[in-house]
């Protein structure tokens, strides 16, 4: 049982997290957002910061295996959690994750700003739904509606979601 704790404004708090499989122990300011912790303190700049109020989805990462907005989470809140960012998608040998492969094949990105958030959201979706290969456009669009892309018009992103499901299935 942990004790109740209180920290002064601007206090530094030690947090222990696993980031992309690596144990990290860092001191963070209590008001530091998870998105800024990843980008500024860990230099994992693959996580993009768009609107910083939860609307655009660019900062989506996985917290304990579940997609979440890193701009709507304080770094202190993830003490003891496991974090996965876009840097943790590819395999150790450099081969691409099915979502990355599918985005590449389907040309599902143009400027690339929204792409890390999209890929983390879609990677979460693949864990959750096994019917994506044959899913209707509408149901895929509904599931990715929390991420905004200003370039593609979404057609190729929807195709990439289906392709990622195919690739995942092929790998068994």
């Amino acid at each position, binding site marked *: 049982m942990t004790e*109740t704790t209180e*920290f002064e404004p601007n206090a530094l708090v030690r947090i222990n997290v696993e980031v992309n499989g690596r144990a990290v122990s860092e001191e963070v300011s209590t*008001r530091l*957002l998870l998105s800024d912790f990843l980008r500024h303190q860990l230099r994992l700049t693959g996580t993009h910061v768009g609107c910083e109020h939860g609307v655009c989805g660019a900062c989506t990462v996985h917290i304990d295996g579940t*997609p*979440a907005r890193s701009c709507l989470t304080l770094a202190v*809140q993830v003490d003891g959690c496991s974090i996965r960012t876009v840097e943790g998608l590819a395999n150790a040998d450099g081969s691409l994750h099915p979502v990355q492969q599918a985005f590449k094949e389907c040309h599902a990105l143009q400027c690339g700003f929204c792409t890390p958030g999209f890929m983390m959201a879609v990677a979460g979706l693949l864990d959750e739904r096994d019917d994506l290969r044959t899913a209707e456009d509408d149901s895929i*669009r509904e599931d990715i509606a929390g991420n905004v892309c200003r370039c593609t018009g979404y057609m190729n992103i929807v195709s990439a979601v289906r392709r990622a499901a195919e690739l995942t299935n092929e790998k068994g």
Partner: protein
Amino acid sequence: MKPSAFRYALPSTLRDAIDIRARFEDSVILAGGQSLIPTMNFRLANPEVVIDLRKLDELNYVRVADGVVRIGAMARQRVVEQNDEVAAANPLIRETLLNVAHPVIRNRGTVGGSLAHADPSAELPTLLTTMRGAITVCGPSGRRTIAAEDFFEFIFTTAMEPDELLVEAAIPALEPGEGWAFAEFARRHGDYSVAGVAVTLKLGADRRIDRVRLGACGIATTPALLTECERFLTGKSPSPELFAEAGTLARDAVTVSDDSATSKVYRQHVLAGLVARNLTTAMTRTDGA
């Protein structure tokens, strides 16, 4: 963009959380953070103290027993949405949750957080109000349970005392054969809605409406109960004309005035359509429809 500096409290028990809440006048509760952190990022909120409830496992539960769904304040919206026992007891809960923001937001957002935030355009306060649910709060002098109809007092304002915390939401199960529907209309999927409507509908042995519950979000300074419509419908034989008439009757319940996105007249129009449509959907889900 980052929140301004605050004192951070991480209570390990509900009792400690209430003590801290009572000690600081200017404190906020951090549950899922999906509404609080954006307002802090924008510095619309600059609280002196943030009380993070993430260690309070005692508030993280979902139980279905004796015809009531009990949801601990820290249960994540997504967990409740995916709970099959909850959906079997009251399918309106899942249908409502599917309209709350986006899946990624619901992964973090909590049921208690949404209720305590008391946004009149939000779905969960309307679900609780429509279902005549109850909300249990806990303060220095103990627990008390407040009917949802009395809990929401104004925009972002509830019947909770400043030193009380929301601990549980209780929603009655639907009866066998009772129909249900929740739908809302938004300019973009996942946006705040122009209006949303929750319905339950039960027919008697004579095929007349035995009981109907009707509530709406986005149309007033609190979640709105459409009691006049409920009275109008009760005892009548369901028909498309009757449901359209109920929609027309609902228009008077819109009390918010024009805003930057929507005129009052348009909101009334949307509400009338949703009432008729949701009654029709609920009807098709009643026993033997």
